[in-house]
């Protein structure tokens, strides 16, 4: 992953001073701020060509040490810088407003990030200060008995009294397989009935009358059985689309 390096020779020489350990930096904004702040340039008038060159030089040298994700973050910023640099080279129209400076969005992000970077330092100080205050339990116990090893303070009377105070047990839900309330044959009869009056029946509508799954399953099995017997034709245009049940052409005769 080589970068295009359209950098002036002067910038390349300059950049030697900014060979930096990228691990130190939290990301492309952090590195960029470092380059800007360490040279005392005006953040509102960033010398974009120089800074771009330094930025690319800084990440080029350590590129292979970065994970793909981190490298991507730095490369994205490099691309942004190159784009801004290109825009700066375009002739500016007179009626252009100040805030149309191609750098303005970058400046906004840099300042925003710098504020939070500063807050992070404040937090680090607060953390260090708080860490000097130790609460109870800081000194590691010699042998803290596990609660599963401590003797339990509970009598059978206390336990039973609680058990008695509980609401009556709900009816135990049966865990055995339910006796099937419906049969395939019964559903076949219902299909015949439904199809007698209509040219086609929507499967979903047919089973919608019953709430439980067993009805749907039995209805479907009945359908398959009828199709096998050549009594119905099943049609579904796409997976998961409506399933239509048609009486077979010759069904009228039977």
């Amino acid at each position, binding site marked *: 992953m080589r970068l295009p390096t359209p950098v002036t020779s002067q910038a390349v020489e300059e950049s030697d001073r900014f060979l930096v350990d990228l691990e130190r930096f939290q990301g492309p904004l952090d590195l960029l701020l470092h380059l800007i702040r360490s040279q005392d340039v005006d953040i509102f008038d960033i010398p974009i060509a120089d800074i771009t060159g330094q930025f690319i030089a800084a990440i080029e040298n350590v590129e292979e040490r970065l994970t793909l994700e981190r490298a991507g973050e730095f490369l994205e910023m490099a691309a942004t810088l190159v784009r801004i640099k290109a825009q700066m080279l375009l002739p500016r129209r007179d009626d252009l407003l100040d805030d149309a400076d191609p750098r303005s969005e970058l400046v906004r992000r840099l300042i925003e990030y710098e504020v939070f970077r500063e807050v992070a330092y404040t937090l680090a100080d607060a953390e260090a200060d708080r860490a000097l205050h130790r609460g109870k339990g800081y*000194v590691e*116990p*010699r042998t803290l008995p596990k609660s599963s090893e401590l003797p*339990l*303070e509970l009598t*059978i*009377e206390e336990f*039973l009294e*609680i058990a008695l*105070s509980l609401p009556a047990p709900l009816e135990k839900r049966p865990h055995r397989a339910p006796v099937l309330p419906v049969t395939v044959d019964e559903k076949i009869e219902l299909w015949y009935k439904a199809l007698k009056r209509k040219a086609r029946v929507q499967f979903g509508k047919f089973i919608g009358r019953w709430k439980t799954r067993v009805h749907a399953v039995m209805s479907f099995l009945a359908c398959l059985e009828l199709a096998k017997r050549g009594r119905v034709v099943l049609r579904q245009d796409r997976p998961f689309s409506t399933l239509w049940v048609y009486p077979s052409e010759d069904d009228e005769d039977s």
Partner: protein
Amino acid sequence: MKTTRIVEAVLFASETPLTAAEIARASGDLSAKDVEQAIGELCHEYEAEDRSVQIYPLGDGYQILTRPEYAPYLERFDSITRTNKLSRAALETLAIVAYRQPVSRLEVEEVRGVSAAGVLRNLYERGLIEVVDRAEGLGRPLLYGTTKRFLDHFGLRAVDDLPKPENLEIALRTEG
């Protein structure tokens, strides 16, 4: 820094008794004897100022503990009393698990009407309940049952030895 104050800080920060030799680890300049002496001074000081804590010798060590007369005030805080007495919520949950096992968290919550996750974890950590199975169905929830420790505590051989719910009242009357 005064030795008494260093010893006080160390004793405060420890939850368990520390021996004088252990406390002396706080500073290279301290001997166990210095610590013993400082503890004596602190005891007098706490006494004179009628403080709510005192330094008690426990085993071969020392620990700062609240004075017994403050125990009633502390009993109101479940979180800070460190006895192995079960809370009402824990007892109810244990009773449900004992009588309905194997039982899921959801079933416990249905009976008690409140979230049971914390209480179940607590009972689990105390070794009173354990995961005995997973239910069929959505998410295959864990099913809890009581442990051998639970049975041992009540001198029962099996869960079936627990009085039947319908006999509970009798059991209470006869044993109570």
